[in-house]
């Protein structure tokens, strides 16, 4: 009996050890992903002189960095508004365009249509920096340089292919019978789209909007190349704060970074489910 008990204890010990290691790994993953972000938010609330070197109590929190940001970079709030307007407009435009195209790709079928869908996938592989090269003089010529419009259109162009793909994958899952019933009742294409398909496509819409929203709100490259003064977005101004000649004011920088990252982080966490569904729909499904 005693001989038989030992392996059970060993096995139990082993299982306990494996579980302990797994929890340790989990903590490591959480620290890796979450700590840097928490560090920004927390540091933005610490007195400027305590950010480096860890002096002062951890509990002495202050809004000094935010008031400093307000005083020293008053335009930053205008830039945040730019980011918001651009991100929302780009998202709205992408949703409309992707919804219409996604519906057709889901419900119609012909070789020419498949070829045009294939073209969409192919174009998605082009590196953006290559495209900025010829667009730069064109944008100048159209006098769209340093406008919100140019960023909205560019973000939309870069995400319409992913958006169409996600919308198609989601509309594929809707039963066709509803549309057929609507057609029998005499509804035209527009009515069917607006009254039947659209209300059922909200999940695909949210999934699409996560990607374009995150990209448009966070983009640096296009804002860097196509804006100068008026249409500057928040990430661009934060990059200027990092490169400031008179030295980096970390307190102000963290306050600006916190204002930039918290809204989009909350958004992503809220729509987490759709993000996951949209990512698999946009890459794996054919």
């Amino acid at each position, binding site marked *: 009996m005693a001989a038989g008990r030992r392996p059970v204890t060993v096995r139990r010990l082993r299982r306990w050890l494996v579980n302990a290691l797994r929890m340790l790994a989990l903590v490591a993953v959480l620290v890796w*992903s979450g700590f840097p972000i928490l560090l920004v938010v927390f540091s933005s609330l610490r007195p400027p002189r305590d950010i480096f070197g860890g002096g002062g109590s951890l509990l002495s929190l202050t809004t000094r960095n935010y008031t400093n940001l307000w005083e020293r970079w008053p335009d930053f709030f205008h830039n945040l508004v730019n980011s918001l307007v651009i991100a929302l407009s780009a998202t709205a435009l992408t949703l409309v365009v992707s919804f219409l195209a996604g519906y057709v790709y889901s419900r*119609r*079928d012909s070789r020419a249509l498949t070829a045009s869908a294939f073209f969409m996938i192919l174009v998605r*592989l*082009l590196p953006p*920096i290559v495209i900025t090269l010829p667009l*730069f003089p064109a944008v100048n010529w159209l006098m769209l340089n340093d406008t919100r419009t140019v960023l909205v259109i560019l973000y939309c162009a870069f995400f319409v292919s992913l958006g169409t793909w996600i919308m198609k994958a989601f509309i594929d899952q809707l039963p066709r019978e509803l549309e057929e019933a609507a057609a029998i009742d005499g509804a035209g294409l527009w009515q069917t789209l607006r009254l039947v398909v659209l209300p059922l496509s909200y999940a695909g819409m949210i999934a699409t909007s996560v990607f374009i929203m995150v990209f448009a709100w966070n983009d640096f490259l296009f804002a860097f190349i196509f804006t100068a003064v008026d249409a500057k977005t928040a990430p661009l101004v934060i990059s200027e704060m990092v490169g400031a000649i008179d030295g980096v004011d970390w307190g102000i*920088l963290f306050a600006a970074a916190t204002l930039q990252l918290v809204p*989009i982080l909350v958004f992503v966490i809220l729509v987490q489910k759709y993000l996951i569904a949209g990512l698999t729909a946009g890459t794996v499904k*054919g």
Partner: protein
Amino acid sequence: MKPSARDWGLVLPAQALLTVLLFVPSLYVFWLSLTKSTYGQSPVWVGLANYTAVLSDPYFWTATLNTAIVVNAVVFGEFLLALAVAMLFAGWIPWRRVMIAVVLAPYAISEVVAVVIFKYMSEPYAGPVTLALKAIGLPTLDWAVEPSHGLAMVVLLSIWHHLPFTFILLYTALLGIPRELYEAAQVDGAGAWHKFRHITVPLLVPAMLVALVFRYIFAFRIFSEVWLLTGGGPARTTEVLAVYLYRQAFRYSDFGAAAATGWLMLIASLLMGSWYIWQMYRRMFAHGRR
């Protein structure tokens, strides 16, 4: 059902955006790459001169080598880490939704803020990570001075930033593997490694390939992280191809050379995506015939 003219009308806005803003410009880049041009000067045909100039520029090869190193280190480092995290999350995890939210969080962060965070943490005198490394007697990252350290920072930052993408693809694929397979293997007395090697890996291959191809294509574009972290310096030693292109075009106003670099990048992107393109082509046109 065959598309009607009106259906084509619904596709038109999407196709027009792609054609006008991406496809035509990329063809125009090809034409530009065969000409010599700068601001306020009409392009002059020079044939392949830009390509020979770029290909004989040592900075181009530095950028190419750096890109190859960074891309491979990022893609495979991220892949292994994401696979490990996905395996961990496929088992029992407390507060699953919250935990996944934390893992996804870096996805919401902009490149600029990510650079701010990494610069702060590894600040050479008082950054928290530098202090921690010093405290346990490890060497610290001299990313502003030492080119290889600068590139290592870029790799770390990119892995941190894009882990959510690879994680989700692998995690959802893992959840899609039927439990019965593992239970059957358990009955047959298979060990953990055996199950991983003969069930998990083979069934995960499609998702793995998609994750790798996508990350290759996206990592290859890397610009902001390098530009904001090292600016390509010191002395252009940490440039990647996108930074090289940017400098040629917007600093030296040599659009021909920049366009030639652009086309070389474009071809490389298509080659990296060729497996994916082929898969999609087969699947889509097989569907079309049905």
